[in-house]
């Protein structure tokens, strides 16, 4: 029993990471209307940014902020240099370009920081025990960080004027445009937000495990799976679906083994697309 509860807790924390990735994917998919394959590598960039920031300043808070800013900057640069010019082209063009951008980011990071895995130099803390269940204080802090980031995103989306405009563009770009909403401003806000969210996910993942150039790319599939399960374009759905996939992955590990844990996202994705393509909470919108 204790074993399963510990798995559940681990699943919750990794589910929050997947949820953040899925949130970034679903925001871009909902507003810019293509699956952004550079999301994973933006994550990696966030982790390396935080690593460098932490090593330079000694403060994890500043490190994390540098990581998030780095992600936002890369998101904005990708939009300004590439995606903006492709906005009236087919989805394939955007998709292929996003793969290319991901590769460029990964190449830059591995040239700058090397291929070896790195870890954050943070002090080890003895886990707390409740009735035999081990809880790591660091996990709690990371979960709190993830929840705070989610709160910021949702507050931006639902409480601010720019958030309302973003949702308007997601609903109907043409209608938003004739209502006088500037598409460029919305896109700038979107890419800043999506980049920062992905980067925060990378920082959290890096703190829990190790930082390597491939870490983000490996999270891309679970992220897509969660975005699809939650219903494309549905931010709250993406987070809930991320939690579901995170927990399912951890709970399945004793049964199917460590390597097949990633394949689980693929299976989830297939089943959802077959049975309920609009996802758990999606609007009735055609994915077929």
């Amino acid at each position, binding site marked *: 029993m204790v074993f399963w509860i510990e798995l559940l807790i681990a699943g919750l924390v990794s589910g929050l990471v997947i949820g953040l990735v899925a949130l970034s994917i679903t925001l871009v998919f909902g507003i810019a209307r*293509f*699956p952004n394959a550079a999301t994973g590598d933006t994550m990696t960039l966030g982790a390396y940014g935080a690593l460098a920031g932490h090593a330079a300043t000694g403060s994890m808070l500043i490190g994390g902020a540098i990581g998030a800013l780095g992600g936002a900057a890369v998101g904005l640069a990708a939009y300004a240099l*590439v995606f903006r*010019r*492709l906005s009236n*082209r087919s*989805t*394939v*063009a955007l*998709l*292929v*370009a996003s*793969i*290319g*951008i*991901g*590769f*460029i*980011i*990964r*190449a*830059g990071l*591995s*040239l700058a920081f*090397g*291929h070896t895995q790195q870890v954050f130099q943070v002090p080890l803390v003895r886990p707390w025990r409740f009735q035999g269940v081990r809880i790591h204080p660091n996990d709690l802090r990371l979960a709190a960080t993830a929840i705070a980031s989610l709160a910021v995103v949702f507050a931006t989306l639902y409480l601010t004027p720019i958030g309302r405009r973003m949702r308007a563009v997601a609903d109907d770009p043409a209608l938003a445009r004739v209502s006088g909403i500037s598409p460029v401003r919305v896109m700038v806000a979107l890419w800043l937000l999506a980049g920062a969210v992905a980067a925060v996910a990378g920082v959290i993942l890096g703190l829990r495990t190790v930082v390597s*150039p491939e870490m983000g790319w490996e999270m891309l*599939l679970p992220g*897509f*799976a969660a975005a*699809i399960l939650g219903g494309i374009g549905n931010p709250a759905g993406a987070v809930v679906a991320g939690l579901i996939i995170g927990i399912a992955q951890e709970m399945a590990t004793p049964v199917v*083994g460590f*390597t*097949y844990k*990633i*394949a689980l*996202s*693929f299976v989830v*994705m*297939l089943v959802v*697309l*077959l049975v309920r*393509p609009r996802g758990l909470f999606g609007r009735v919108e*055609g*994915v*077929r």
Partner: protein
Amino acid sequence: MEAYLAAIAAIALIYVLLSLGLTLHYGLTGLINFGHVGFFCIGAYAAAILSTTGGMPIVVGFVAAAVLAGLAAWPIGLVSLRLRDDYFAIVTLGFSETVRLVVTSERWLTNGVQGIPGIPRLFEGLGVGMPSALAILGVLLAVNAAAVWLFFRLVKSPFGRMIEAIRDNEEAVRALGKDPARFKIRVLMLGAALAGIAGAFYAHYIGYIVPDQFIPLVTFYVWMAIIMGGVGRISGAIVGSLLLMLFLEGSRFLRDVVPFISAVDMASVRIGAVGLALVLFTLYRPQGLMGDYTRR
């Protein structure tokens, strides 16, 4: 030197086979296949396992590679061809990663991360050196020529007109009472079988396969080739693959010229160059080098 050129030519021809398969998928039918390496991997492992532990003749391995890769495409087609293009891309990407996970974990069959060594080379009877190398090149050329011939026949046939119509306007095809999904599944299986054959050639040529040779980067090498050459054109697939080979081998020579760059760093530079090529071609020359110059 001759041996080196023969080796490059063989690998280039294997990439041409892969590009032809992807041209069939994407260029002619519009299927965004991001998991091409999965079919390549299945073909390579099928041929390798049958000819080593299976003890079968090499020909059996080639047939099995084509059939198994083609069959693997069938469920993918059934599941996802009803989906919009971008979802299909994600599903195929997931497929190729899952294939790599399976060959990594099922050690009883694939020997896991250690891979399969000692795969017999083609035409070993002719002796090592030029005679066997030339024979391999001859067979590869013949297979490529057959694939190109098949392509031309296909494009001119009613089937070819149908798949191009699907690419251009799927709704119209449906309105004419044709079921696009059935055509797409056949195209998908055919292109996958080509990739499977390419995989069998690869396994027998390299002689040693490990799961790490089948990372998604390979899929995007092929994408880079067809995007550089010109999407939907056979000449584009061929020219693009040759350019790709030039790039892959050129980056190897670059290391001799530019000092202080390690093999690992070179791998990063290569990934970055692939990324840059994908972005720049999408931005500035979406029709590729062999594409129509009058249109943009």
